[in-house]
């Protein structure tokens, strides 16, 4: 019973950063600028938040600077791919590489391999809601998480509203689906692409802070371990819908939770649980593709 509770808690724990990357990244997806740099932006968020907290002992400042630094990366990405019309995939990969390299560089200069926030007890960051925290199972889901985790789930709803209920959201989708149409009504397409990317960057900054500072109180090299790419896969699987894509993110969280908790019983085989979300996403993409192309009577491939 205890284990089930732990699994539920850990699911929420592990899904949160990915959900944040997902809900931020869908704007870039809908605007047709694929943002592969989610990984690098999250890593930067993690690094800057922990470094700042280390130097200033102020967690809030850390989170703030994390978001800002991720957005700086976002600006670089936007500039290179939208204004300079660079290949988005390569720019994204470059940013990921740079984020990791810069963090590594600073760590070496600091003569350390991790940044540990020894002044911080992460348990203090967790919000324990009275009464709810004592409900079996449900309590583990709803209570005991740090702020950004709550923010991530709330964010699913917020981003849904932004995307489908506001003028801004409509325009982002127009820019992504038919740039000609956007230009014909006088939309500044570059502006919308920039904003879409920056929203993603901002969310990734939060995600990184959640991953490192809030949950672990430390930073080590490359701790994001591909979560940014999982977020991209989740966005694809969910076709950019905030709710569906987040569902895939939660799936990943669940797999991680299972892997961590069942390792006592299964030993190293527990690591295989981590593979489940990857395989599942490939499966989903395949099914989606089959359904989409079911009616396609044209043989062979067509130009985009």
């Amino acid at each position, binding site marked *: 019973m205890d284990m089930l509770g732990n699994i539920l808690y850990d699911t929420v724990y592990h899904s949160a950063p990915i959900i944040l990357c997902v809900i931020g990244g869908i704007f870039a997806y809908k605007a047709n600028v694929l943002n592969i740099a989610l990984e690098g932006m999250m890593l930067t968020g993690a690094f800057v938040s922990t470094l700042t907290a280390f130097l200033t002992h102020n967690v809030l400042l850390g989170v703030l600077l994390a978001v800002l630094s991720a957005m700086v990366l976002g600006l670089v990405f936007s500039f290179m791919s939208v204004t300079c019309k660079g290949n988005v995939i390569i720019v994204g990969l470059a940013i990921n590489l*740079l984020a990791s*390299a810069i963090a590594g560089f600073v760590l070496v200069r600091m003569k350390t391999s991790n940044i540990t926030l020894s002044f911080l007890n992460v348990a203090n960051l967790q919000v324990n809601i009275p009464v709810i925290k004592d409900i079996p199972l449900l309590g583990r889901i709803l209570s005991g998480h740090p702020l950004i985790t709550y923010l991530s789930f709330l964010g699913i709803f917020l981003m849904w509203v932004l995307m489908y209920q506001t003028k801004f959201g409509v325009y982002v989708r127009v820019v992504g689906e038919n740039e000609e149409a956007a230009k014909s009504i006088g939309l500044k397409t570059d502006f919308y692409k920039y904003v879409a990317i920056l929203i993603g960057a901002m969310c990734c900054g939060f995600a990184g802070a959640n991953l490192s500072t809030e949950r672990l109180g430390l930073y080590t090299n490359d701790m994001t371990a591909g979560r940014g790419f999982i977020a*991209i*896969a989740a966005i694809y699987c969910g076709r950019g819908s905030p709710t569906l894509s987040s569902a895939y993110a939660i799936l990943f969280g669940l797999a991680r939770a299972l892997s961590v908790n069942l390792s006592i019983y299964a030993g190293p*085989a527990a690591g295989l649980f981590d*593979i489940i979300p990857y395989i599942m996403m490939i499966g989903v993409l395949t099914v989606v593709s*089959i359904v989409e192309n079911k009616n396609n009577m044209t043989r062979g*491939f067509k130009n985009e």
Partner: protein
Amino acid sequence: MKMRNISMRLVNSILPVLLAFVIGGVVILAIGENPLETYGILLGKSLFTQKGLLNTLHYASPLILTGLAIAITFKANIFNMGVEGQMLLGGFFAGIVGAYLPAMNPVVAKLICLAVGVLCGMLFAMVPAILKAYFRVNEMVVTLMLNYAMIKVLEFLSTGVFRDYSSGYVSTPTIKDEAMFSRLGSSKLTIFFFVALAAFVVMYFVMNKSKLGYETTAIGKNLEFAEATGMKVHKKIITLMAISGALSGLAGAGYMMSEQFKYTLSFSGNPGLGWDGMLIALLGGHSPVGVLIAAVFYAALKTGSDHINLYSTVPKEIVAVIQGLIILFLAVKFVDEHTDIGDKIKMKFHKKSHAAGREE
């Protein structure tokens, strides 16, 4: 026109590198060191001493292969991000086979291990290939996911079934002597370098002079045209991914047999030979000759970074920073040449003015 093309490509590749070095130089200055001295160590020891050069060529060997693996698929607009995973799989099983081989002729032993690596890489690449060719699934996301999945699987295998318990850290058993590539002379260089070179020669012919190369170029430029002229794109996708997987597997196997000798969790280094291959393919403009030169240059950076560690207080990560900057700047120029934007614009304008004129 060809001369112009080549010189344009050179500029496209060299400019980003120079820019990156300049910015890297600024960073080095900022931490109070001398950039020229640092760069001297970086490139001097790795390219301009005999031992250094040979070591560089040694490290370039797997990079040439992964670079080629990516270049051939990129040419057809296929984004095979799974080179890393295919390489790891190839290296892993080459290592396992190499460790459990019965006593036999060393040449045969090496051939078997290399063949295992090639086969593994090829088979693993078939998954995204078939998904794309027959189900139109986007190969980029699939290969990315498969990379992570494969790393986990290999992690599992190397901590469990295939673990070498006599070793102090997680690794598979060391391969037998017959399977190891021996050093030629006092440097680390082995015959594997020549294997990579042979692959380069083959790929050069394939990409530039063969029917497959012609069809690959066509597919990359205009899919519908390729289909309408009977190139059966779905079959070519399988072929190209098979070649790519084979090259990646070969890289992994060779690397295992000439440098690592056992599979560990840091087999491929950071960020990984597959990702390095991507940078090399980009830097080399997706042409085999370019890949060769870029691989050597990149390997020089890598061995050079170790020297920086020894001879200066600049963190060797500066090299990673420079690498990141190179890719970033490459991205922009990349557009000019890969998508032939100059030509496209010219064509459109031609169409428009002729359209407005006599036809539409």
